[in-house]
């Protein structure tokens, strides 16, 4: 059985090793832990003997808070879980509730969702690339990736009014029709973006320091990846060809042609290659979404669930009544339970929503990929140098907001 970590501070070191092993505390305030992750390391010289992650520093009890909100009020809470991929969170929650309601979403809304979710993936991967390279010592890349991320955030601001906490996907569709020049703007962005990926690749792929810091480091075998519930790019870099977008499609992903990058290297370098390729595939999906963007409404025809347009609300009595009812009482959702999984930038995200027939969710459970990936940290770092821990944390791409929730 794989060891997922025994508490080091309580356990006594192995007999005979008492004087040689040192316990080192890394974090919670450490620049390379990507948030407030605390690692307790038992080291023999510079070799990691054991590693124990202590999490919970960002725990805000979001799942408990959801139980006291109306269904539509949960959407803004989901932004704050994985704060680097807000639209993916919105999508997953909305799909889960729509499945409970049995609601059909207009095609245009579905396509815009795919478009923006892929931009979110680019956003998430750009932050990963910048910070990962910075942890390794390649400071320049960070400035380049944040240049492109800035444009993505401006696009998010244009559609939703918010750079990070978008809440743009709502139960039953989108918050509003996107601005007129949005698609031209995204088109202009993705036209130059593949060159930008080449630029990052030129800075890093041939860099001997970067190569040596990643190649052969953080080995995770395919069996261990499955056993430890690791998902997403980290799993695919261990040679497992599984992507929810292709294999269990949601939100009309079956209509898009894209490749799922897989690497059999099983190390940090494989994860770097997979994510870089994923960015190129996302660009392809965005291009297809732009080319085939259907017309029509962006909200489902369900006046008791979706807030009416402002104009209608001010001129029509029924719309005003519906608006008042939704805001004050919410809407009842048929009893039942659903689990909706999507492929977020970090891996398989899932929302488990249980309804008891009232206007507030009975239980919302969020499955986030980082929580499981963290379990594999010890397996990947054991017997390696202390400095490799930094490279491995960067390569599994965790966000502490999603781990602690």
């Amino acid at each position, binding site marked *: *059985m*794989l*060891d*997922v*970590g*025994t*508490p080091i501070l309580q356990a006594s070191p192995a007999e005979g090793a008492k004087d040689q092993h040192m316990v080192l505390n890394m974090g919670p305030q450490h620049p390379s832990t990507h948030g407030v992750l605390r690692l307790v390391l038992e080291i023999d010289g510079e070799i990691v003997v054991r590693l124990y992650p202590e*999490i*919970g520093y960002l*725990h805000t*009890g979001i*799942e*408990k*808070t959801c*139980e*006291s909100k109306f269904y539509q009020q949960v959407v803004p809470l989901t932004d704050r879980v994985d704060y680097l991929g807000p639209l993916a969170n919105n999508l997953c929650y909305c799909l889960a509730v729509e*499945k*409970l309601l*049995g609601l059909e979403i207009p095609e245009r809304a579905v396509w815009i969702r795919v478009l923006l979710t892929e931009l979110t993936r680019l956003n998430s991967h750009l932050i990963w690339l910048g910070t990962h390279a910075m942890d390794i010592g390649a400071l320049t890349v960070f400035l380049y990736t944040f240049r492109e991320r800035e444009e993505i955030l401006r696009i998010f601001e244009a559609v939703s009014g918010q750079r990070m906490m978008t809440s743009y996907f709502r139960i039953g569709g989108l918050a509003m029709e996107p601005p007129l020049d949005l698609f031209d703007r995204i088109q202009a962005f993705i036209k130059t973006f593949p060159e930008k990926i080449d630029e990052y690749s030129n800075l890093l792929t041939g860099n001997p320091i970067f190569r040596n810091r990643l190649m052969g480091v953080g080995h995770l075998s395919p069996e261990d990846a*499955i*056993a*430890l*519930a*690791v*998902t997403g790019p980290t799993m695919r870099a261990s040679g*497992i060809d*599984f992507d929810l977008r292709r*294999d*269990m499609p949601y939100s009309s992903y079956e209509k898009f042609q894209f490749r799922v990058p897989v690497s059999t290297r099983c190390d940090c370098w494989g994860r770097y290659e997979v994510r870089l390729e994923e960015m190129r595939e996302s660009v392809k999906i965005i291009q297809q979404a732009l080319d085939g963007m259907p017309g029509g409404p962006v909200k489902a025809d369900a006046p008791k669930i979706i807030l009416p347009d402002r104009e209608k609300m001010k001129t029509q009595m029924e719309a005003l009544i519906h608006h008042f009812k939704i805001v004050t009482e919410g809407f009842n959702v048929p009893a*039942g*339970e*659903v*689990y909706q*999984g999507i492929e977020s930038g970090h891996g*398989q995200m*899932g929302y*488990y929503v*249980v309804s008891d027939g009232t206007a507030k969710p*009975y*239980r919302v*459970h969020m*499955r986030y990929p980082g*929580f*499981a990936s*963290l*379990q594999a940290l010890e397996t990947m770092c054991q017997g390696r140098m202390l400095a490799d821990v930094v490279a491995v944390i960067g390569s599994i791409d965790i966000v502490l907001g999603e781990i*602690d*929730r």
Partner: protein
Amino acid sequence: MAEAPQETLAGKQSVLEKMPDHPAVKALLAWNAEGLTGALYDRGELTLTVAPDNIAPALSVIKDAGYNAFEDMTAVDWLPSEPRFQLSYHIVSHQYKERIRIKTWLSGDQPAIESITSVWPGANYYEREVFDLFGIRFEGHPNLRRILMPEEWVGYPLRKDYPVEGYR
């Protein structure tokens, strides 16, 4: 699954009639005909209920039937009804490209169940989370300690009798 039906199938009998070839159902019945206590096919998701004493062997049977990847587990508190806690395990099959939910029920009085870390070591953090937030004990878990809340915390925040706001 191509032959998956559209409508809701409530109850063990109707699921067994309509989906007799489903690999998970077949494997569970072959292992123990009495092991499957309930089944529901709703909104495209198959839920199989097993007795709490059987959870680890049942999941290892399901794992051998091709449902290889543990994805998620959590609990739901149905206070004041009894049995009070519902445990849901979500397992994905890379081979069949399908997800299945295994459910079991626990009583509210000192809830405890066998740990499944022997089947999937990756359930470790998930069981710790459920222990931390619901107070359900997992027998045989290698390191059953609070994970998100502080060590010295009193109470289990996700239970329904725990207040959402104010002082404890």
